[in-house]
């Protein structure tokens, strides 16, 4: 997960708090980020599944896309993504992907239509930290003359995740607990403008809270003061999302993988499959019709050894049929889990495969994702 970039690392508005909490800081997407706190990844992971975890995700890119007069913002944005944006109701959020001309994924992102009647020419976007600079230029260039993009770099983003998240947030923002899953809106609390969405990246119920940078530490401390809440680092964020079967950009999806290959077909509505009109739509329509050559699948090693990113996946005859794109040890299952791409003929649940770990073939099988039951609020 950590990467090396020569440019100096940027700090999030919670940097001082991370240090005060004893976090181990690592470089990630150009930012100094907490990989874990003194409790460690395992305890942080389990705490999030049992109570509630607070994550600093301020490195992610927040932006407001605003249509110029006479332009339908949803129709304009649909030229860049295969998601059904036109059908989004005010306050509704959707997961979709920015695509290149080959249907490859430039990034995955969240898109929300604002609630306020006067803001129906806008879309609120949250994109990945490692891609935000490129994404924002791409969107501005592609929609030049139709829309303008405002980068919201003066805002932090906190994620509160876990079965106790709603109970905790209700104490501070009572109305937020009534948000439906994948819905969000503005809340004004103690003179602070919050944008709260009910969503997340852990498979649990939870919220992402956009807060002005200058109020971020105070809000993080208020949430951490609640007895159910512990600070959680990027290490557990990764193992939590992998248990939930969710993709990490640059690993499980990238410019060479399409949403169809990535098993994200659910994110493309019937209308958009039929009418297309997004980059690479002809390629994706053909993949949908004929079936993709490869598919992202879940993998359970039969033994105890984790299979990490890059591990070769072999069929029982020893032929390479794919690679692992994410692999870890699942704290919840107390067993290794992985995801990766295999040829479509080997993608059926239960298919026996071998994983080449340190030169030895280890037995494993293709398995449905998520690896644990999702507990999103419905």
């Amino acid at each position: 997960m950590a990467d090396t970039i020569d440019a100096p690392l940027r700090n999030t508005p919670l940097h001082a708090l991370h240090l005060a909490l004893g976090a181990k800081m690592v470089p990630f997407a150009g930012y100094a980020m907490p990989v874990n706190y003194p409790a460690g990844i395992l305890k942080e992971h389990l705490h999030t599944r049992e109570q509630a975890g607070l994550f600093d995700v301020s490195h992610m890119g927040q932006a407001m896309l605003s249509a110029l007069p006479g332009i339908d913002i949803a129709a304009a944005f649909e030229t860049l993504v295969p998601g059904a944006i036109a059908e989004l109701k005010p306050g509704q959020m959707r997961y979709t992907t920015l695509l290149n001309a080959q249907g490859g994924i430039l990034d995955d992102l969240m898109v929300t239509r604002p609630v306020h009647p006067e803001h129906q020419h806008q879309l609120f976007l949250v994109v990945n930290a490692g891609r935000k600079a490129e994404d924002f230029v791409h969107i501005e260039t592609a929609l030049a003359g139709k829309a303008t993009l405002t980068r919201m770099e003066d805002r932090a983003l906190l994620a509160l995740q876990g079965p106790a998240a709603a109970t905790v947030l209700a104490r501070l923002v009572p109305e937020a607990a009534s948000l439906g899953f994948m819905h969000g809106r503005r809340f004004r609390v103690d003179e602070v403008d919050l944008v709260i969405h009910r969503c997340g990246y852990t498979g649990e119920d939870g919220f992402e809270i956009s807060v002005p940078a200058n109020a971020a530490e105070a809000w993080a401390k208020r949430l951490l003061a609640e007895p159910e809440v512990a600070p959680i680092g990027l290490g557990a964020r990764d193992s939590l999302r992998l248990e939930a079967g969710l993709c990490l950009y640059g690993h499980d999806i990238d410019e060479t993988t399409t949403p169809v290959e990535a098993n994200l077909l659910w994110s493309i509505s019937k209308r958009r499959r039929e009418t297309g009109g997004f980059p690479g739509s002809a390629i994706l329509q053909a993949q949908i019709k004929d079936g993709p050559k490869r598919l992202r699948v879940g993998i359970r090693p039969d033994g105890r050894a984790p299979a990490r990113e890059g591990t070769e996946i072999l069929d029982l005859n020893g032929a390479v049929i794919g690679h692992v794109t994410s692999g870890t040890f699942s704290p919840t299952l107390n067993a290794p889990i992985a995801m990766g791409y295999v040829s479509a003929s080997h993608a059926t649940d239960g298919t026996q495969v071998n994983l080449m770990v340190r030169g030895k073939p280890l037995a494993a099988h293709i398995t449905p994702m998520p690896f644990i039951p999702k507990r999103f609020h419905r």
Partner: protein
Amino acid sequence: MTKIFYTQDHEWIRLDGDVGTVGISNYAQEQLGDIVFVELPQLGTKIGQGDETAVVESVKAASEIYAPVSGEIIDANTALEGAPVTVNEAAETDGWFFKIRLANKSELDGLMDAAAYKTFVEGLA
């Protein structure tokens, strides 16, 4: 009193006659975090100094354990396979990985004693 030596890769070896018991240092386990898997060497394997001899994995990543000296593997701590967390709890005692019959005791001369290793680790902070 048995003598303990350390490598720059954070293995320790405790000598008893011509047999060394090998593990990773307390500093190393702190850096790795929660250990969830270990892979131990086969008994009877002959290994060279610096060879990859065992593997330790945290939630995040796999790390190799290199042999501090050359020799033959005569024992492995199979209790770790069912309880890898022992490496976190007792890295320099119950969390040992394997025992090796030394082929060449003079290889120990290139290793650090406890005081030198302590200084070495302090220099990494």
